[in-house]
């Protein structure tokens, strides 16, 4: 009863003490609203820090989406003219890849915007649930600090602007013909990636916030352990580090590897192997029954009785009171469950955008490297991928794309690990407290935690953990090599055709020369040369 009263009283202060997470998202929300990533109401967000549905916002978002699509198509059209003239000189493979990947950025952006439109009601609920979790954690004396989240958002925004602007400006200055007024349209080429990154910042920061909640739960549990260890050390009158080694040292020295049963015989009263082998069964029994056979039995009986007495004298560690700590552990595990559920819901909301981002990352990474190869071989490449002509711009663009993908994967993996760490901390509590009732609670909660972990995935196609990176990097390398081989083969075929054509021309010329009766030794040599060239296999 007193605990519920206390909870009630703290409940009133909770609302004042816990600041909503969305408070930290102010700048990000304004930018997102401006470029049309989120349809939610701006005024409500500014005044109450809540995300609420807004019809005007939705219309504005659809409007921006249509504008982007029109501008992007205009961009493709105006820059595509170069492609049409260059089509003959491009290899078919390069041309097809360029065609295939032209719209992928646009598809990614449309996925982000349409998903945000679909989720506009649920997104607000998600942050409400996080606020509820924060309040519950606060009641368990576990405060989550949100203040540095806005700093993180700022850093991410600055990095996004830096990458986008540096790629855009460098490409514009070095690789776009800026004497024509249509070249201004090149700015549109940065829109899809920019919008996508802003949307992913929402996901990344929210995920980071969840990770912090898991870590807060773990820290609370580990603090319980640390206080209890100090408390026990205080009881035994030693320094805190003594307890650690003492608890381990109190066991009898473990036996050696090769002495298989020696330990057992030692336990049974210092009998050596030979004497036991010779002895009959009835000789063993009396030894085993004696209390002296294990020297610790006297201590063993005393220890559990000692604890409750001293606990009453000095209430320092919560873990020494099993009934009291039971409630706390239960609450923490429930909060853990709730955070896991929020994580799953969040993953659900962003599943399509993440899938499209990963597909985009994989394809663009491969294509950009392939086009870089083409550019080094002085082949023409699709005009939309002109940034591949410059290795430095390519490096920046690739690190931007891969950084985005890898950071999301890394964060998901870390969050998943943090959620799994709770079980470890819980077991530490159980073992350190060494209380019968607590073991029961810990075993129960431990099973619960085992069955309820959070794993992030992209629409269920693949999990977002570091192992995915292994597969993806292997895939990129393989495809790149295959593409380059195709390109080499195509290039050789093209060379051969050109040589053949020029040979035909020469032969025609030669025929004309012969007709004119003006045969010269040089043409014969040339003819021989061409014939031998054509006859030599390409090995």
């Amino acid at each position, binding site marked *: 009863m007193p605990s519920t009263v206390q909870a009630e009283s703290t409940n009133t202060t909770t609302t004042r003490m816990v600041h909503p997470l969305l408070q930290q998202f102010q700048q990000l929300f304004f930018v997102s609203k401006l470029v049309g990533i989120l349809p939610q109401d701006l005024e409500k967000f500014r005044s109450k820090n809540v995300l609420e549905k807004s019809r005007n916002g939705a219309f504005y978002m659809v409007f921006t989406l249509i504008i982007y699509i029109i501008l992007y198509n205009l961009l493709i059209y105006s820059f595509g003219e170069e492609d049409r003239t260059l089509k003959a000189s491009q290899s078919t493979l390069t041309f097809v890849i360029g065609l295939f990947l032209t719209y992928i950025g646009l598809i990614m952006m449309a996925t982000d915007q349409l998903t945000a439109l679909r989720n506009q009601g649920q997104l607000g609920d998600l942050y409400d649930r996080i606020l509820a979790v924060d309040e519950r954690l606060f009641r368990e004396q576990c405060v989550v600090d949100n203040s540095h989240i806005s700093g993180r958002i700022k850093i991410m925004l600055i990095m996004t602007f830096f990458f986008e602007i540096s790629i855009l400006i460098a490409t514009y200055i070095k690789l776009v013909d800026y004497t024509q007024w249509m070249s201004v349209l090149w700015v549109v080429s940065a829109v899809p990636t920019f919008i996508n990154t802003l949307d992913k910042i929402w996901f990344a920061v929210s995920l980071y916030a969840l990770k912090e909640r898991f870590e807060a739960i773990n820290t609370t549990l580990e603090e319980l352990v640390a206080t209890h260890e100090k408390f026990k050390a205080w009881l035994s009158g030693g320094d805190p580090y003594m307890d650690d080694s003492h608890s*381990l040292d109190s066991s009898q020295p473990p036996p050696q590897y090769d002495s298989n049963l020696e330990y057992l015989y030692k336990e049974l009263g210092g009998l050596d192997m030979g004497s036991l082998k010779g002895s009959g069964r009835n000789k063993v029994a009396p030894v085993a029954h004696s209390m002296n056979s294990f020297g610790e039995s006297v201590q063993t009986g005393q220890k559990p009785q000692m604890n409750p007495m001293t606990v009453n004298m000095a209430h320092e560690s919560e873990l020494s009171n099993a009934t009291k700590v039971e409630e706390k552990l239960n609450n923490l595990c429930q909060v853990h469950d709730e955070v896991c559920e929020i994580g799953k819901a969040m993953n659900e909301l962003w599943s399509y955008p993440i899938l499209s981002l990963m597909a985009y990352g994989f394809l663009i990474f491969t294509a950009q490297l392939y086009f870089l190869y083409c550019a080094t071989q002085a082949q023409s490449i699709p005009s939309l991928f002109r940034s591949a002509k410059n290795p430095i711009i390519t490096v920046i663009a690739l690190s931007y794309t891969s950084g985005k993908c890898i950071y999301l994967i890394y964060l998901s993996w870390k969050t998943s690990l943090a959620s799994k760490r709770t079980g*470890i901390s819980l077991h530490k509590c159980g073992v350190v407290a060494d209380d019968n009732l607590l073991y029961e609670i810990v075993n129960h909660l431990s099973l619960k935690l085992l069955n309820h972990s959070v794993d992030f995935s992209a629409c269920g196609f693949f999990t977002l953990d570091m192992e995915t990176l292994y597969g993806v990097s292997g895939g990129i390398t393989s495809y790149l*090599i295959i593409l380059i081989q195709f390109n080499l083969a195509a290039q050789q075929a093209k060379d051969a055709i050109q040589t053949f054509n020029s040979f035909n021309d020469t032969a025609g010329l030669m025929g004309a020369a012969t007709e004119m009766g003006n045969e010269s030794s040089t043409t014969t040599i040339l003819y021989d040369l061409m014939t031998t060239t054509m006859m030599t296999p390409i090995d």
Partner: protein
Amino acid sequence: MAGQLGRVLHYHLRFYQLLGFHGLPLPGDAHPLRTQRCLQIWSFCLMIFLGTLAVFCVCSEDEFIHIGDTFGSFNDVLKYTVGGIAVVSIYVETLISHRHLARFWRLHGLLSDLLPSSTSTSSSWWRELRQHWRYLSWFHGLTASELALLAFFSLGQGTIRRHLVLFWTTFQPFVWLTHIRNIQFVLHVELLRQQLKQLAHELNLLAEYSKFANRRASFEGFENYLRRQLRQKQLIYDKIYDMYTSFQAAFRYSMLTVLLMIGVRISVDCYFMYYTIYNNINDIDYLFILPALLEIPAFIYTSRGCMEMLPRIAYKLHSITPGPTSSSYPTLSLQVKQIQNFSLQMMHQPVVIHALGITILDGYLLTRLACSLSTYAIYAIQFMPKLRRNV
């Protein structure tokens, strides 16, 4: 660092210190803080030197890299780049994560102090050799084979071209350093395995003891005794798990880069081996690849051995037979609860050795690596005739 290291470990750690891989003072050192600072400065200097060397070799006009075709020079540049990254990452890690490494060795000392001191008549040298024979055989076997190959190469190769001299004198240090780092991983994993093995052994004895006591001679208080023993084992397991997390934290990036370096090197050297045979070039430097082929299996074999201890421990734990249910706890006996708790703890704290989460170092990785290396070798060989025309 608690506890005294054995002489074998002491000398090997000195060796790693000399190479700048172990940035911690050893237990017997007179001025630990000063030694640590000196070791860190030494690691830093080596890092700068080798990093500069890699950049110099790639950018130099001289014949450091293969001159002949673009693909060959690309391969050599790749080798230098990956080698440079690997070595720099090793030293950066030594400088940054020395706290985790110190924790690993402190826990190792703490757990080793619990082991019985040598009671047998054999000398401590012999005991240590027996304890660390796996690590010692990997270390000395691989080092000896590298040196033997070097001797064979310098004797067997007739006229050594300038490119080979330049390439091997600059590139071989990178190879050796990554190999020795790999063996350093093996040492740490092997120590972890020894602790797990010891725990499994103790649980085995406890299981036999419990069986014996239940069948023949149970006694009052046995239940409590068994429970306390189990709890101690749980605490020990927790320490071993801490040791494992410290190991993972101390060797994060370098594990990945070292594996990558060895993999890339094997793949590229396979290409050049084929190249020299295909073009009838009288070089035998491709033989240097042989010890590299054993490096990754050495690490994977050790880590697999370590990870395989876990099911053994669980099996031994569950073969402990609890005594008859006591009247005071009619539902579930105390020992059963303790065993359950331990078992659950092990499920939450699995010892899984991984390289930054990207891949788990088990037998499956070896299969995947073999597959991918052979695939890349085939790709590379396919390039060769096509590229000859571009020379």
